[in-house]
């Protein structure tokens, strides 16, 4: 999850501030993995890469696939947030003699990431739910276990409802975490009056 967010930030910065080749590369990566259904990305990493001599265990294939999927989706939230920052922030940083990277790291991103958090939290829920797809490449996660039990006991209502509730509680926990983070990072004076 943090790696996905990290990838998102790197991709977004590359697209906004990178020179032409860098930004084109980042745009290409984003376009590709946002275009692929998540399950296709997973299947490619697990089943197709070995043909090229690259092997990952089911677990690591899933991890890498989800990082790519969530990172490319989230990068668009970050990119949007970067572009919404007033150009004056950048001018002020430059006028003080900051280099571009210093400006991006210390001035632009701290503000942009705050703006992107609600979107990112949305994406994190998808990520929790997507994790069920990992069962298709043989990762023994909740959904895989549920299907296994169901094939033994054939009680779909109880078993899948329980699995669903487990996903829901994980998603809720993540959301609560993001709420707390948003509250912690809130900038005094910018709260909206209730």
């Amino acid at each position, binding site marked *: 999850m943090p790696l996905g967010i990290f990838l998102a930030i790197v991709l977004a910065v590359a697209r906004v501030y990178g020179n032409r080749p860098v930004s084109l590369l980042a745009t290409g990566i984003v376009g590709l993995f946002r275009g692929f259904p998540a399950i296709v990305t997973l299947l490619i990493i697990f089943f197709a890469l070995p043909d090229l001599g690259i092997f990952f265990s089911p677990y690591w294939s899933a991890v890498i696939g989800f990082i790519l999927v969530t990172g490319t989706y989230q990068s668009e939230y970050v990119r949007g947030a970067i572009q919404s920052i*007033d150009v*004056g*922030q950048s*001018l*002020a*940083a*430059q*006028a*003080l*003699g*900051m*280099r571009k990277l*210093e400006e991006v790291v*210390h*001035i632009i991103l*701290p*503000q942009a990431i*705050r703006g992107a958090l609600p979107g990112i939290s949305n994406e994190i829920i998808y990520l929790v739910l997507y994790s069920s797809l990992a069962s298709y490449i043989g990762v023994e996660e909740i959904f895989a276990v549920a299907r296994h039990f169901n094939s033994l006991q054939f009680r779909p209502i109880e078993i899948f409802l329980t699995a669903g509730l487990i996903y829901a509680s994980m998603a809720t926990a993540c959301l609560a975490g993001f709420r707390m983070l948003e509250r912690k990072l809130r*900038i*005094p*004076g*910018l709260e909206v009056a209730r």
Partner: protein
Amino acid sequence: MTDGDIVLKAEDLHKSYADNKVLNGVSFEIGRGEIKVICGPSGSGKSTLLRCLNLLTYPDKGCVWLEGEEITEQTRDVNKVRQKIGFVFQEFNLFNHLSAWRNVSIALEIVKKMSKDEARKLAMEELRRVNLEEDAHKYPAELSGGQKQRVAIARGLAMNPVIMFYDEPTSALDPHLIGEVLDVMKKLAQEKLTSLVVTHEIGFARSVADEMMFMGDGTILERGPPDELISNPKHEIVKQFFKRINELYRREGR
């Protein structure tokens, strides 16, 4: 350039955006301790001039010297140049996610590589200079426009610049907040901090400026001591401009 007492010198600056000629041959110089005011109608190239002088944008033609060194050479490290020029914007441009003192200290840490403690101490001193010590922990959104602009001035001062640029520093302020900013600027002027000020505050110009330059159509149409330029302009555009400003001042009783 051998004269060590000239802080900034501009020669024949030209700048166009697409077909729009914004600067059309601007030349002037500022000696150490001098305060020069630039005024003129909007669109006359005042802001563009300031930005060409600290290389936020590059002039198409012409040269700028800062303390005798040509800074318009392409090989110069622009960040080194910009550090030496304090820049105060019309819209303050404080870093919204940082408290007042962090706004002042961040460039000291990142650009000047000071330790956190040193930077904090200096930031507090600079905030004291602009009478904002007590508000050091507030965030920009918690400050009034006048306070924001004073933080912005402190942020510029902290870098220990050889010259300060002010780009219409009071134009975005409510009338009752303009005074506190002008007071700080006057105090700094009396401390002989070399400054280039774009402003229409003719009261400020009269009381502290050594020279006033009137810009129109991308050039300096007329220049001279502020009293003389304001009360007895020669150029027709300048006459019209001050006539209107004077009417406004009388109405507001300033």
